């Protein structure tokens, strides 16, 4: 298993043997297929950070369900900011890997 990207709170891994990804959250690690990783990316993209600061989202929390509702997560504002960076970084690393694989 190889590390794809690490942010302040989260780490993503790729497992070639099982052809899947793992994400390490502060309290647990979950396994995702590529489609589930894409779905997670979409959910994170849809988080509106502005609403955490303009009073629309009073509690400052985001709730996400992953992998066909197998996992339920609650993230605070700091984690949401980090999550966006984490997803961008993980997919940038995947793209870099694609480029390297293609050019070799």
């Amino acid at each position, binding site marked *: 298993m*190889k590390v794809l990207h690490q942010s302040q709170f989260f780490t993503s891994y*790729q497992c*070639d043997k099982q*052809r*899947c*990804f793992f994400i390490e959250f502060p309290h647990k690690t979950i396994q995702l297929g*590529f*489609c589930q990783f*894409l*779905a997670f990316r*979409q959910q994170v993209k849809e988080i509106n950070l502005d609403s955490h600061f303009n009073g629309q989202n009073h509690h400052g929390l985001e709730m996400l369900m992953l992998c066909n509702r197998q996992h339920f997560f609650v993230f605070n504002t700091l984690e949401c900011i980090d999550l966006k960076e984490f997803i961008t970084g993980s*997919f940038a690393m*995947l*793209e870099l*890997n*694609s480029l390297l*694989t*293609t050019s070799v």
Partner: protein
Amino acid sequence: MKDLVRQNLSIHVDVMDLLNKQIEKEAHSSSAYLAMASWCDHNALSNSADFFYEQAAEEREHMMKIFRFINDNGGTAYSPEVSGVNHDFKSLEEIFETALDQEIAITKSIHNIVGKCRKLNDYTTEYFLQWFIAEQMEEEQTMRRALELFDLMGTEGLGLKLLDERIPQIRNKSTE
């Protein structure tokens, strides 16, 4: 490290995002045409109404083409939300002008995705979008043909009624 993304997805992730945005645009376009059809129906312009009902169905077909393309190639297509559809129009001429503007916006958006495909070497999607480029050319021609009729026949009274009768022919002529 294996290229798991490529194993699962035949198109580029960024292009997939743009295609999902395009799905939203096509869905909005379909709903906008339905609103136009409704206005025409209420104003006794039945041929124009039929034309816009057909346009609405066509836009939905376009949306479904992209939707299936994303899913068939390992991506995830998202069902779009449609809001902000305008139902207020002043005249049939305004409707066709709005329709032309709408088609131009869709064409620009398709061209933008093709540009992105070229940048990212996503030849699969570029090939898929060739059909849309030709289709958009036809759509724009159809709307322009309708607007030409207003210059020829006027926008009120009997002229408008005669114009409405000519509407079913504009699509056929531009696709011949």
